[in-house]
């Protein structure tokens, strides 16, 4: 009876088998070294910068989700009018648009903010979101006040009104960015 190796592959000599075994051992060694190195480098990175985990966001309740979804179109309209009014003032100062165009934007913003205030009154936030809802309402009222201040320029032509309106709009913008970030984290992906 022939030895098993010779039966399976008579052309492979004992020396050949040794070479194959050595080759396999080398391959296994490379894999072990690579895995060890990878694990070590990961430990080094972890040591260089260990970052505290951000607190996990609790899942929204159905009532919270309903409220946030209802707020979204209001939020979009408020933001659009706020930015159009800001840009309108920039272009007015740089003389890229005249008073007619600025007035159109301010009038549009006044309408938007009035409508948003009315819509917010119809929303019924769950108790957990009541503070944010009130804060959002305060922001819209600030935008409204800012637009009223800007509109005074059409009565007396004084650009001081734009400067008086600015901090109101900035405070309102800060507030809705803060609330917007909480409700719609993906609204402004950093890029």
């Amino acid at each position, binding site marked *: 009876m022939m030895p098993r190796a010779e039966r399976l592959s008579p052309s492979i000599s004992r020396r050949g088998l040794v070479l194959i075994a050595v080759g396999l051992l080398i391959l296994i060694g490379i894999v072990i070294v690579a895995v060890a190195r990878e694990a070590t480098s990961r430990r080094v990175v972890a040591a260089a910068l260990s970052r*505290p985990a951000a607190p996990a966001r609790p899942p929204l309740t159905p009532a919270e989700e309903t409220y946030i979804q209802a707020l979204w179109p209001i939020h979009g309209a408020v*933001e659009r009018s706020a930015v159009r009014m800001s840009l309108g003032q920039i272009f007015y100062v740089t003389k890229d648009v005249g008073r007619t165009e600025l007035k159109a934007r301010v009038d549009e913003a006044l309408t938007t903010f009035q409508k948003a205030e009315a819509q917010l009154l119809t929303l019924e936030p769950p108790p957990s979101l009541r503070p944010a809802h009130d804060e959002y309402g305060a922001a819209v009222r600030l935008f409204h006040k800012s637009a009223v201040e800007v509109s005074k320029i059409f009565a007396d032509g004084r650009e001081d009104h734009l400067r008086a309106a600015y901090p109101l709009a900035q405070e309102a913008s800060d507030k809705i960015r803060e609330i917007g970030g909480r409700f719609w984290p993906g609204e402004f992906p950093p890029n």
Partner: protein
Amino acid sequence: MRGRIVRVVSALAAIAALGVLVNVGTLAADNNDNDNNGGQHRPPQTLPQGFETHRELLHDAIRSDEAPENSAWILESTRFMGVPFRSFMPDRGDKPTVDLPVNVGIIKGPDGKLGLYDSGWKQLHYIFDLNTSCCWAPIRQQMTAIGLNPNDVEWIVIGHGHWDHAGQISEFPNAILYVQKEELKQIDFFLNYPSTFDGGHISRVNTDPGGCARSPVCGYPPQTVNEILGKVLGGKAHIVDGRHEIRRGVIIHPAFRGHTYGSQLLQVNTPRGQLVFGSDTYSSWEGIRDWNVANIQQTDTIQQMLAYEKCYVLTSRPGDMSFHNCVSAHEPISYTAGYPLTSNWWLIPGGNCSRAAELTLANGEGTHVPNPPPRGACTPVIPPH
């Protein structure tokens, strides 16, 4: 036979005449944007190009070589952690994720006054709770910690208006802001983008709940635009239209649609030659080196490549067309020897693990790098917010 010749000649003449008529008003690559009657008669779908010829760029490079030299640093406003590499550079992906710094450039002129290229951001709730970034510290505190007085900041050039790059403008109330008019115009244009065309498809992409409120561009919350307004109302803004020389050796170059519609570069003369800061048009230095696009937002990829080329031309020396002096906003290997310009780096003391790098020193300016530079392990904290 003669009749046939007459017909052929007439047909060719008609085609030539038609060609001349059609060509009237066509924008050529070498045209200045203002050649087209100030853009007043530009067709609605034709955008300003921001092209600059090699000759013009070389002229700026050569002239600036004679200008007073500036010192320069970068510091890290925050660091995005674990960003999928392919979302940053679609042609790469040798690692599944990368950490991206948000770099701010600081330039110190011969008079000791400072300028910023980009201003970082400060929306802490977003940075720490939602975006899982790390390492934020207030920019004024960071500057003080590396030996630069924030009260000396006289000007800020924003490479583009996205909120993570133009977010701390109001921290420098006396600084003049430089922003491209094209950047403001594009925000305005897309605020009015029709929501009805094609069933509102384009508009819907980003306006579904949770998406960007102003499609197809986003990244400009009212907060950021209003901060720009504050500068304009305070007489502290310069709305730039294309190339603009702030002073000798400090020149803004347009990079329209290199990242956003009104992106702009900043060329600065230094002892190591011209540096070109590129914000997100130069998101990746390796991308500039290897001609890979990166961080494509409102980007025209050809325009991004042309902006890369501007750096090659502006920073070139005879026999050396290189990418070494291009300053990137998000290069993952910033603050390592792999990106030689930023290799002289250190952890900002009290800077919540944020890093700074000294790019070059001029006019007897001493080094700001501590000896030895702190580079050890660091644990960032989440500040109260």
